[in-house]
């Protein structure tokens, strides 16, 4: 029997007053997938997550998590959640905090105890297990929050901006943890502004705007074939440059700097050969792949969120 999708939503909608925060969200995410949720500020990303984890009631539409309707308590025991503006019970110590949340997950005492030690070690907070959270830095709170979301070894975990408070070392930690989760078959729903993070961790991304998916992308096929190349050259005439149109588009010559978009990577040696045989000195050829950031701007528009 095939596994139920980790997340399935059908025209999920949330209206606050006259404002539709999420217009119509239709998604299907498989178990074990690492899924990136992208969009400008105010696109409805956090509202969507809040509907899925049961903080906000949808105005209309349906959704299921791990095959069960939203709000199913047994399913919630298999879901982890790190909220965006993480604020925790800061009067507890790290160990007490994880203990409280493990108990709320209904975890058995011995398993919980072992899991707390394991996770404190994993997020690098073993030395702070008895320190009160009120003394923690933003980055440390983010780490303990992540540990909280993973306590129950979830089959599906929602991470809303998990790296927002972290320094580069912390970000690498989160990235590694996400990779481990994928290895364990956990579905990760990742909402992040850090596109480079998404690019290296996610299998698939959805671009959303005004609460609708406007583009779904497999990151494995992000490379559309086209390559933007910057060349540093000398002795290139306009006529010779225009001859490059056989292999490339968007040719621009600015002094010694030539930029063009080659139809594919295989044409680069031919372009080089053509330039050399036409008496052009080539000092540098730097191909640049289309980044997620460029796709984001292209998809969502330059104005971003408001």
């Amino acid at each position: 029997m095939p596994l139920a999708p980790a997340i399935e939503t059908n025209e999920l909608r949330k209206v606050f007053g006259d404002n539709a925060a999420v217009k119509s969200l239709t998604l299907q995410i498989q178990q074990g997938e690492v899924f990136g949720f992208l969009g400008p500020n105010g696109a409805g990303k956090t509202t969507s997550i809040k509907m899925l984890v049961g903080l906000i009631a949808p105005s209309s539409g349906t959704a299921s998590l791990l095959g069960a309707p939203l709000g199913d308590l047994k399913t919630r025991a298999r879901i982890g959640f790190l909220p965006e503006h993480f604020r925790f019970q800061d009067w507890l110590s790290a160990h007490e905090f994880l203990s409280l949340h493990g108990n709320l997950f209904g975890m058995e005492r011995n398993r919980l105890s072992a899991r707390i030690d394991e996770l404190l070690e994993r997020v690098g907070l073993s030395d702070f297990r008895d320190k009160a959270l009120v003394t923690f830095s933003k980055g440390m709170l983010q780490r303990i929050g992540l540990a909280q979301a993973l306590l129950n070894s979830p089959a599906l975990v929602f991470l809303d901006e998990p790296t927002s408070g972290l320094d580069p070392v912390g970000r690498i930690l989160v990235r590694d943890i996400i990779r481990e989760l994928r290895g364990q078959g956990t579905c990760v729903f990742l909402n992040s502004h850090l596109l480079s993070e998404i690019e290296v961790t996610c299998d698939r991304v959805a671009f959303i705007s005004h609460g609708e998916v406007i583009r779904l992308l497999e990151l494995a096929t992000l490379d559309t074939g086209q390559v933007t190349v910057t060349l540093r050259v000398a002795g290139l005439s306009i006529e010779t440059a225009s001859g490059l149109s056989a292999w490339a588009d968007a040719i621009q010559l600015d002094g010694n700097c030539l930029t063009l978009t080659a139809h594919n990577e295989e044409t680069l040696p031919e372009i080089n050969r053509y330039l050399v045989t036409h008496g052009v000195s080539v000092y540098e050829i730097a191909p640049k792949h289309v980044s997620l950031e460029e796709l984001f701007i292209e998809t969502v528009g330059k104005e971003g969120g408001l």
Partner: protein
Amino acid sequence: MNPIFILARMTFVQAIRRKIVLTGLLLGVCFLLVFSIGFHMVYATSFSPPNISEATGIQHIIDAEKSSGLFLAGLYAVTFLGIAMAALLGADTLAGEINSGTIQVIVTKPIRRSDVVFGKWLGFAGLLVLYLLLLAGGTTLSILVQSGYMAPHLLAGLALIYLESLVVMTVAMLFSSRFSALATGGVVFGLYGLAFIGGWIEQIGAVLNSQTAVQVGILTSLIIPSESLWRRAAYEMQSPLSGLLGISPFGASSVPSLLMVAYAVVYLLAVLALTVRVFQQRDL
């Protein structure tokens, strides 16, 4: 473990660690000190000396009346401290956690939202019983040691005072599930004040035989039955003689019936049920 008990324990520990209770305890201890010293001074100057053999039976009765009056005045202050604690705990709890966002990682666990309300309620109910026992017990003990006076129906009276604090705490939780902590505090103290004024109108009305005034008082008791519970508690614990003498600042001349006590219990349960409903439907 049942999530209600996990959350009740969390609420209890939270209140203690966040110093709300510590502040309340300090205030309570200050009150007990001031009260004991005050009682001691009154006792030393106006009570008949215990070793004088000619002290008559009448004087003993008068002494007991003085003790009873001071005891009720003390318990009135204890009740007010308990109410203030109940209102503060209840007002901040849901509103504060919704505002700070700490509620988000709680309600997304495999628990019902009603568990959150019941757990918090139970935690505060535990705190309030300890707080009131400490203050009321201290007041009773202080008088008992100094003058040998013990109020009648002490347990029934304390139970009614406890019920009053629970009513106020539950009303505070109801508003806290929908409005900010500050607005909740304002509304709850406003309601408490309304009941207080209503109680006085009722008492004065009873003395002056004004049926309308008594009805106004009963109406405010229906809106929030806090003051009527105090008056019933005072009635239970006052000496039989002061009951005959009529109006006193801390006693009760128009006595709320047992029906009003039953109403208060039903009222509390209804407000608690409404709190669950409001909190269940709230977007967090």
